[in-house]
């Protein structure tokens, strides 16, 4: 029996076990919406802005091992989706975005609500398709899901002209898919893995640097096993947080621009670095020349060859899936009993512990004004470290990364690569729908929250009881901090004047609003809010307007050239001591 393209699409999504489609209707997708109306396999979530649909689908993927789907109409619907697609692309998040298109005879005629979506999205997708014939539709959807989820994951766009949704064909969903030009690697080269094991055994100052690839590749267990087997210090990137447990003593904190003193010093002075699904981003190693000024051997495990040796030379590249490669590496290490020299490793740990002592994340909390760090620490306590946390972009994002210890992967949802303000709230919605029984909190700022505030309405409609934690400093704080440091404290347009009354705003949308201005009220308020299991609570914390994120590495500086927090500035800090007894090397 022949059915319409729209019905075929709905059947395909059902075949892919799609649970939610986040979307917004319009002329070009009306046929699809009619097919959605007539089915009951998946639910549709009506957002209030297409950007939010894509962020929600993205966070649905990030917070689970499932895949998010967004649906938007042609023209403005499609262009509104672009920021969301780019956000997912930069963080390698699997996702399928379906956009409507004007009818095939109209394409190229500047038709009403026509935009070349394949062209617009091309630089920010893993791949995209324009379906010109209804007979190709099912196979295209199958390919899209396959491409999005395999290899280095990423968003895939399917652009479907209206006449294709109306045309009829027999539905047959392909059982399998193979694309001759696309064969993502899985297993790492055994010779290379052996070399990596050898390097580890020869290391005096080994360091394990874990990135988002370990989360994407579901390899947290293998990472943890490797680190503990070797007893080697470990850091996570912003995207890797949770891949190795944040509360573990072998964890030295996040590294990079706002990483801990000990993580950055260890990265700079390590003699052997194992990079696991981490891409030596400029916010991580800052200046490559300065980074390489201390000799080091680098092993890099990545599924994407173009991530390897992109910014720094790599001694042992291993192309493959993290999980598989780590399994093989662990097996070799166990088999050969290869371990870093114990005496050297102990001396290295002594050095690292000296760097830990000054506690670069220390801050002072008085009785008067709430410090943003304090809210994050209390949040960790109140949620038992178990909540799924989404974040917007700014100082609040960095405070969350620094002070909420993430102990499992997919618990920390943020936009790292693109740094998209407005991500947090729709992401919380998507994460809550993927994890209906989890506590979900969105950490945001007075600037960011206003970039997708309209989603409070969606949250009401779909009963997503997320807790919004607004660290309200009355500034575009991250911008203000840079202006304080680099532009002579000239706060050009970084003061958010005329902020709304967030409590009333939350109430207007049918939610609970709270404002907290005293340090003593922070914990009780959090407890009260998280006790309201069924309600979205908007918590407006009035925090120190001049708080800064420390440590900080200025552009172009090295990892060992951090701007340190005030309490460390007058301290006598222990330098890297090359003459420590790192033992004799075999």
């Amino acid at each position, binding site marked *: 029996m022949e059915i319409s393209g729209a019905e075929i699409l709905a059947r395909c999504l059902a075949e892919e076990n799609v649970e939610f489609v986040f979307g917004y209707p319009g002329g070009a997708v009306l046929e699809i919406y009619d097919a959605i109306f007539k089915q009951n396999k998946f639910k549709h979530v009506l957002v209030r802005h297409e950007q939010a649909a894509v962020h929600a689908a993205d966070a649905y993927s990030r917070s689970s091992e499932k895949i998010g789907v967004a649906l938007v109409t042609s023209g403005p619907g499609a262009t509104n989706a672009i920021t969301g697609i780019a956000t997912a692309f930069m963080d390698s998040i699997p996702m399928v975005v379906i956009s409507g298109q004007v009818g095939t005879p109209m394409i190229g005629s500047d038709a009403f609500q026509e935009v070349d979506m394949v062209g617009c999205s*091309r630089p920010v997708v893993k791949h995209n398709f324009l379906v010109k014939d209804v007979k190709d539709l099912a196979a295209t959807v199958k390919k899209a899901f396959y491409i999005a989820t395999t290899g280095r994951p990423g968003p895939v766009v399917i652009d479907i002209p209206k006449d294709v949704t109306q045309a009829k064909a027999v539905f047959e969903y392909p059982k399998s898919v193979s694309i001759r*030009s696309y064969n993502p690697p899985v297993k790492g080269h055994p010779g290379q893995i052996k070399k990596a094991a050898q390097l580890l055994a020869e290391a005096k100052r080994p360091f394990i640097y874990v990135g988002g690839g370990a989360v994407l590749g579901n390899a947290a267990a293998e990472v943890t096993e490797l680190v503990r087997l070797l007893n080697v210090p470990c850091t996570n990137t912003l995207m890797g947080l949770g891949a190795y447990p944040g509360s573990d003593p072998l964890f030295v904190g996040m590294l990079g621009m706002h990483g801990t003193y000990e993580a950055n010093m260890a990265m700079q002075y390590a003699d052997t670095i194992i990079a696991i699904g981490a891409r030596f981003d400029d916010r991580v190693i800052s200046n490559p020349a300065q980074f390489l000024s201390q000799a080091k051997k680098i092993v890099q495990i990545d599924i994407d060859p*173009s991530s390897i040796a992109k910014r720094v030379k790599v001694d042992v590249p291993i192309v493959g899936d993290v999980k598989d490669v780590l399994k093989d590496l662990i097996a070799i290490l166990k088999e050969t009993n290869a371990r870093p020299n114990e005496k050297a490793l102990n001396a290295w740990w002594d050095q690292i512990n000296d760097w830990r002592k000054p506690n670069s994340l220390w801050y002072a909390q008085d009785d008067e004004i709430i410090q943003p760090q304090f809210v994050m620490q209390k949040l960790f306590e109140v949620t038992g470290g178990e909540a799924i946390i989404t974040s917007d972009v700014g100082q609040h994002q960095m405070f969350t990364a620094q002070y909420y210890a993430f102990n499992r992967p997919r618990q920390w949802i943020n936009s790292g690569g693109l740094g998209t303000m407005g991500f947090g709230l729709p992401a919380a919605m998507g994460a809550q729908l993927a994890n209906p029984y989890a506590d979900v909190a969105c950490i945001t700022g007075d600037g960011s929250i206003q970039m997708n505030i309209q989603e409070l309405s969606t949250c009401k409609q779909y009963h997503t009881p997320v807790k919004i934690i607004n660290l309200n400093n009355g500034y575009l704080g991250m911008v203000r901090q840079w202006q304080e440091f680099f532009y002579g404290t000239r706060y050009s347009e970084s003061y958010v004047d005329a902020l709304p009354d967030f409590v009333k705003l939350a109430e207007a949308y049918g939610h609970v609003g709270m404002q907290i201005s005293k340090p003593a009220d922070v914990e009780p308020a959090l407890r009260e809010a998280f006790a309201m299991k069924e309600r979205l609570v908007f918590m407006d914390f009035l925090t120190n307007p001049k708080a800064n994120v420390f440590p900080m590495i200025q552009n172009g500086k090295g990892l060992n050239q951090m701007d340190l927090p005030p309490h460390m500035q007058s301290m006598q800090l222990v330098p890297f001591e090359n003459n420590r007894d790192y033992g004799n090397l075999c």
Partner: protein
Amino acid sequence: MRHILSVLIENEAGALSRVTGLFSARGYNIDSLTVQTTEDPTMSRMTIVTHGSEDVIEQITKQLNKLIEVVKVIDLNEADHIERELMLIKVRATGKDRDEMKRMADIFRGRIIDVTEKSYTIELTGPGEKLDAFIKALDQAVILETVRTGASGIGRGERILKL
């Protein structure tokens, strides 16, 4: 350094724009690009001439390979290869220039493929430098029009780029 990349790519709408889009988005250079379907009509072959440091060329190769529709990429410079380009050049050919023009074409092994009372159109193939040399050897005033295809390349001997 100058490199010649040979790319096998699915013969699909939009595939070419993915390649050119990649070069412009990442700031890579394209000195020339030629493309045509192969003996297998589902596949096209491109020859891209580019230049850059070794690191950049390595990234270009990796990024090309990453495109879903790209089947295979080789850097012809890694081994012996042959490179050819076709030029059609229309020159003024009147009076005593007429014989001179024909002689020049012969020297460079060009063929005159169109003749009018006032002009010749000459077809010339060879490595790019040979075409450059031909242009240089002519009196610039006689050149009416040139069109060049850009280089096509192929590996020497047993080196084969095929699916």
